[in-house]
Structures are given as structure tokens and as C-alpha cells.
């Protein structure tokens, strides 16, 4: 028995240590996330970017069939990094979503989206994704 105990003890100590370090390998704390989380969340984001891409390229279903990409191929010349800014066409300082709505109402001759409409979020995601890497310049005309 004595031999078995001494044989067991080092393993038990190891086990204790292992339990301490892994702390319950299944449990994440609030500030922690895994590599898989990052990949999955990026995919979530890209799925909305892709939805925005579809809407941007004729997916809004407006009667006059004008699509955003006709004036903004690859969302070029939308300057999302300059918002919020004074928007001459609206007479006041606005954020990007409001200007997108202006375009939907004016060149696209359709009805505006609610500011929290998932489609409006998707359009913004696509526009900003095509503009990634460009520094902020809020307020610049």
C-alpha cells in the first residue's frame, strides 16, 4: 500500500497542477475569445458585407432600377471616412446612413430605410469594407 500511495502521489500532484493550470479547459472568461471565435465573427461580418454588396448592385428593388454601383463602382467616391459631416444636400450635419438614404430617395427615387434597418447596416458594411485602410477625416467636404 505504501508503495502504491507513493506511486499515486506524484500523479495526483500532477493532476492537481494540471487542473489548476487548465482551470477547467471548457470555461472562457469574459475578456477571452478563441481563434475560432475570431474566424466565425469575421464570417458573420463578411456575410453582412456580402448582403450589402448585393443590395448595392441592384438589390434594392427600386422601380427606376438605378443601382448604387452605377455612380459608385466598387463603392468608389462615397467617402465614408468623412462622416459625420455637413451635407449640403440635407442642409445639416449627418452620418453616413442618412446620406445613403438621401441617395435612395433621390437618384434611386425610392423610399428611405430606417436607420437601424439591417439592409442599411449591410450597405454601410459593404461601403466601408471597400474603403478599408483609409484614415478617418470626419467633417471633410
Amino acid at each position, binding site marked *: 500500500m505504501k508503495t502504491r500511495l507513493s506511486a499515486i502521489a506524484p500523479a495526483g500532484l500532477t493532476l492537481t497542477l494540471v487542473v489548476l493550470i487548465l482551470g477547467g479547459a471548457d470555461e472562457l472568461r469574459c475578456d477571452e475569445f478563441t481563434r475560432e471565435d475570431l474566424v466565425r465573427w469575421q464570417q458573420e461580418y463578411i456575410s453582412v458585407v456580402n448582403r450589402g454588396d448585393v443590395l448595392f448592385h441592384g438589390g434594392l428593388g427600386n422601380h427606376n432600377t438605378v443601382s448604387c454601383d452605377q455612380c459608385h463602382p466598387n463603392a468608389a467616391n462615397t467617402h465614408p471616412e468623412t462622416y459625420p459631416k*455637413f451635407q*449640403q*444636400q*440635407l*442642409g*445639416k*450635419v449627418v452620418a453616413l446612413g442618412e446620406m445613403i438614404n438621401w441617395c435612395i430617395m433621390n437618384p434611386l427615387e425610392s423610399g428611405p430605410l430606417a436607420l437601424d434597418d439591417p439592409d442599411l447596416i449591410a450597405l454601410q458594411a459593404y461601403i466601408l469594407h471597400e474603403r478599408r485602410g483609409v484614415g478617418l477625416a470626419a467633417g471633410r467636404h
Partner: protein
Amino acid sequence: MGVRWSPPAGVMFVGLVASSLAPLAAPLGLPPVPIPADNPQTPAKIALGEALFNDPRFSADGQVSCATCHDPAKAFTDNLPVSKGFRDMTGTRNAPTVINSAYLRTLFWDGREPDLEGQSKQPPVNPVEGGLADHQTILRIMRNDPAYVKAIREVFQVEPAAVTLKHFAQAVASFQRTLVAGDSPFDRYFYGGDKTAMSQSAIRGLAVFTGQGRCVSCHVIEQTQALFTDNRFHNIGVGFKHIRGKEEEIAARFLAAKKSGADVDVTVLTDPDASELGRFAVTENLTQVGSFKTPTLRNIDLTAPYMHDGSLQTLEDVVEFYDHGGRLDLDDPLSGFLSGGIRPLGLSDEQEADLIAFLKSLTSPNVAGTPSSALASQ
């Protein structure tokens, strides 16, 4: 001052003048008045300018002054479609208000004068306005009337022999720069924070103005001020039906006349066809045929009828004209030269009524005049 200025009209807007004499103070909703460096404001110069503005002796029959077509009792317009000058002769264009003209970057509907100093010299010598052959009558009176002699000496420190048309123009402009008016119900609501200053209908109308009505791009409202004009020239389709099919002929005839020395000021005010050329008559730019300057909308309820030819009687007509994308009746032709900003709006009756309520909220206090609805019923 001890000298009598002839027209009594001068008294009527003293209130307006006095309140605006506070140095560089702009009314609520407006920026400071731009004053050119070579024509600073002084009380004496302003009073001289006011007298000149109201003096009917500066016309061929002694009956027509600036105030004839820009009547202080009528918000400095004449409430006529086109103005009547010397011997009741009519011109081709509607008299714009002088109120807030200090903020304009060009003068006249076609912008053919760059400033107020330039503008005031033209009407006295136009055959259908003042009717004078030249400015000599004006200079003679300014050099000989004792009241003017004294005032000019005080304001400009010149003796009668040295009086020029420039003194006339500078004094008149100086007076005109005091005719500023903001502080309307809209201004108090939008800039003054008084949420009760506009009616609910007018508040909805403001949303139409900046939204579906597509007004704000040309009739500018900004975060801290509202001039209600972009100071640019646009063809919105007014008057097109009168020249439809004749555009080429009219343009060619006008250019030929201009090339052989015809005076643009006279031509556009005496020839209704040439008048329709708008900014093209000044720049000869083919892309500006039929373009006219965006006027301010301040006090618009008092300055009927509307547009460069006075062809729209009421604000209802104006809103209908825009709603139809550049024509009053849907049977009227659409101008091929229409600005890209003009298109059918699809406004409902309620939106149109709200928009008109908003426009009526742009009337400043202490401006004398008759509301357009009252004029329409006359």
C-alpha cells in the same frame, strides 16, 4: 438734420433701418452683412442713400424712383408680374425684393451686375424703367439740390463739381445694405430654440423642404444660418412654353444683335423673347440658356407674383409647378434645358399645404406688405 427729404415713404421703414444700424449685428438666422472695404457704412451715407432711393426726379417724367418698383410698403417689390416704369411701360421681368439683397453675389435675375453699386445705375437709364437718356439728370440734381449738396459734403467730402455717379451708387448701396430681415418664425424655431414658434403644419413643411420637396439644395438652409439662396443660376422651366420651338432663332438673333453693339440691359428688359434667354444673355454659354438666379425665399409670402416673369400668382401655383417637375400644367411642354435639379416630386396635397405653411413662416417681423393669399383674391 434740418433738411427735408422729399418722399414720405422714407419714414415708413425707419424702424427697420434703425434696428439694423447696430454695428455688424445680423438678424437671427442670417450672417453678418458683407460690406465692401471701399464703401463702409455710416449713418449719414445711409440716410443719403435712402433719399436717393426714394427720389422720383431721377426719371424722364419725374415720377419713377427706385421705390416705385421696390416699394417699402410692399416688401420692396411692386406685387406686379412685371414692373411698370416710365409712362407705365412694362418690362419683361418681375421686381425682386431689396430686402436681404446685401447677401447676393450678383444682381438682377441674370446676374449681369456683380454688386449693389453696379445695379442701381441701370434702371434710371433703361427705356422702360426710368427712361432717362443718360445719368446727367441725376448728377445735375445731386450737384444742385442744397439738401444733397450738404449731405454729399458730409458723407464724401466732395464739392458739387466733383460729384460722380459713383457717389450715387455707393450711397444707395449703403442704404440697401441696411435692409436685412431675419428673425422669422422659422428662425426662432430653427436657430432660436423656440419649439412653439412654428405651427405643426409648418414644421412638417420644413421636413418636406429638406426632404421630398428637394428645395434645400438651391434655397439653402444651413446649420447656423439660412440665406435661402445658393447664389447660382438654374433653368427651372419657367417661361419655356413661350419660346418653345424658337430657341435657336432667338439665341442666334440675340447674339447677332449683341455682336453689333446692342445693350444687353435694354434688350433683355424690352424683348420678351430675349428675356427668356436668362443667364445665356450675359455669358453666351450654351449650357445656361434660360437659367435664372435663385432668389431668397425670405418674406416670400409678401412678394407675389413669382418667378422672373411673374407668371406664377400664388405659392400654391409655385409648389404645383415644382411638383410637376418644371411646368404648371401637365400639358405644358418640358424644357429641354431643364436643370438637373428639377424633376417631378410626387407630393401629396397635405405635403403641399404643409410646405406652403412653412414658406409663410419665413416672413420677418416689421416688414410691410400684403400676404400672397390676399393678393390672389384681388
